[in-house]
């Protein structure tokens, strides 16, 4: 016997033991958990289910994590854990009688947060499906090597010597009944074949079982690949856009404010020289210098508006959008319902998106009136900009709309344009984001 064969025999033996463990675990855990899951799901409408579900789901996670460990340790199949991270818990520090009520409220809030966390995770639902199907696959596929070996050994070691038992028959395909010596030989032959099969192919069968588990317990692969492609694309677009934007700012500063400040200091320097000999000329130069500083300030103001509008910094999206609406030559109805503030980059993207759509309505659509609605739907900022203009806007033709689409995409945002010839135009944009609590 050479080393390789010896190893295989060893691993084969291990695989049989492991297969046995798998079959036992499946038997004890999967069926009860499946039943518990079904019961809690059925009781959700009554509310009781919401209390039952979290512990059951967490128990399921314990089981699936065990399966992930075994898949790695036994078959070298890595199954990444797909669960979303548990949200951070809000800490509370209240004491006394008021503290009791507060603690109770906190417990309830914590429980709701847990339920939401578990139920919103698609992995939980895939876990449930696995729990049900594995009641079968865990026994049939996971327990196969052990079943082959045990049943085979029974055929070899028990059946030939205890003919009485054969009344019930033995054999995988046809029951070998009481056929005398031929029957005994058949049992021994078939049994040893089966045992060998289980022994020899135990490891690959366990590996196949691990792969089946990976397809259900790992993160869905196709979606990840799609996501990576999408992120690569939007990232490169974002990088390009921000580089172009920085170049534009650099050019504007270089040719504008910077040049004017140079002229300004020259004027002041000249005036300094002239102030004794020719006070009139000095005053003229100083007046010019003041004018140049005013122009430089106006240019800087325009530039700042393009980078981050001050009103947005001061009043948030609500004030920013209202200020935008006031700057247009037509009536714009504004509804903003955003309880709290989004992260600054998101706010900025939202502001510029609304600004572009409103500017389009005023410039290209020849609209008589327009309306803006901004609200938060729990997971995303929704911005709807509509006008009664001539329509026919098409983001595919490039220009500002396309740029906005890209800018939103950098935040996983979306844009939908409905603009038939003759109008009206309605642009719906979404930016996924969380809100910070409103300023108190």
């Amino acid at each position, binding site marked *: 016997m050479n080393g390789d064969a010896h190893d295989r025999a060893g691993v084969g033996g291990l695989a049989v033991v492991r297969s046995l463990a798998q079959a036992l675990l499946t038997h004890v855990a999967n069926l009860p958990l499946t039943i518990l899951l079904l019961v809690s799901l059925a009781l959700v409408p009554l509310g009781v289910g919401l209390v039952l579900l979290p512990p059951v789901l967490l128990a399921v996670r314990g089981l699936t994590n065990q399966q992930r460990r075994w898949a790695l340790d036994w078959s070298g199949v890595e199954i990444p854990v797909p669960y979303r991270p548990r949200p951070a818990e809000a800490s509370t520090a209240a004491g006394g009688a008021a503290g009791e009520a507060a603690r109770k409220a906190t417990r309830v809030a914590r429980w709701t947060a847990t339920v939401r966390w578990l139920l919103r995770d698609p992995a939980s639902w895939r876990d449930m499906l696995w729990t049900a199907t594995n009641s079968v696959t865990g026994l049939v596929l996971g327990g196969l090597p052990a079943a082959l070996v045990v049943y085979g050994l029974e055929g070899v070691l028990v059946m030939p010597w205890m003919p009485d038992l054969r009344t019930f028959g033995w054999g995988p395909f046809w029951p070998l009944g009481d056929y005398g010596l031929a029957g005994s030989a058949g049992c021994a032959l078939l049994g040893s074949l089966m045992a060998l099969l289980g022994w020899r192919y135990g490891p690959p069968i366990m590996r196949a079982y691990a792969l089946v588990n990976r397809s259900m317990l790992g993160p869905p692969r196709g979606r990840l690949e799609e996501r990576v492609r999408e992120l690569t694309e939007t990232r490169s677009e974002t990088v390009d856009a921000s580089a172009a934007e920085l170049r534009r700012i650099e050019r504007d500063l270089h040719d504008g404010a910077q040049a004017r400040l140079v002229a300004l200091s020259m004027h002041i320097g000249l005036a300094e020289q002239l102030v004794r000999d020719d006070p009139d000329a000095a005053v003229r130069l100083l007046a010019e210098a003041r004018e140049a500083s005013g122009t430089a300030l106006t240019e800087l103001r325009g530039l700042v508006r393009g980078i981050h509008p001050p009103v947005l910094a001061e009043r948030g999206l609500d*004030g920013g959008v209202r200020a935008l609406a*006031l700057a247009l030559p037509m009536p714009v109805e504004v509804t903003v319902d955003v309880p709290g503030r989004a992260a600054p980059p998101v706010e900025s993207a939202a502001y510029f998106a609304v600004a572009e759509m409103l500017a389009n309505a005023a410039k290209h659509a020849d609209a008589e009136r327009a309306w803006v609605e901004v609200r938060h739907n729990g997971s995303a900022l929704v911005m709807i900009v509509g006008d009664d203009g001539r329509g026919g806007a098409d983001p595919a033709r490039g220009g500002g709309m396309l740029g906005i689409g890209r800018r939103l995409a950098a935040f996983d945002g979306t844009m939908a344009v409905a603009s038939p010839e003759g109008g009206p135009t309605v642009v719906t944009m979404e930016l996924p984001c969380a809100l910070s609590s409103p300023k108190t």
Partner: protein
Amino acid sequence: MRVVIAEDLALLRDGLIRLLSAYGFEVVEAVDNGPSLKRALLEHRPDVAVVDVRLPPTFTDEGLRAALDARREIPGLPVLVLSQHVEQLYSRELLSDSSGGIGYLLKDRVSDVKQFVEAVRRVADGGTALDPDVVSQLLTRRSRDEPLKALTPREREVLELMAEGRSNAAIAGKLFVTDKAVTKHTANIFAKLGLPVSEDDNRRVLAVLAYLHA
């Protein structure tokens, strides 16, 4: 005349103190944040306050809010708001109580010292000083309005100066025409816009601004 100044940049704050003192104002307190501003306004009840919109601690519109709060407690408290940028949104809020004594100017305007000091005096007297940038924004927004389109170029000029808060006499001086000519223009403007005529300069300005902000 007693002034309270609120400006967080030390350089600008000192500049404002020096400038206003040189023109005979008495700077009773100069503060650098929103909460102290509110306290100073209520404590000193100055003849006029010169306030920066953006102040610590939040660096948002702290100064504007403090000024508006103080005006709720002391109606008509004259406040001149300074900012690096001007917004119709803010001018609308400042003028909403239509009691006058309001100024809203770009910080750049301080460089024209004479005009700036004149604006501070006007606000202290219960008048209005609105930045030309705000006025032009207001007029752009209403550019499609029929009544405004009906104005002659000269009447439009007069309207702009009136919206900035200037008295008829000041407008006459600026346009090099007689007071009577300006009175005639204003009468025409008020007729075309359908506003009630008033003899009082301040009330006339507020009526025009209310019309433009509508």
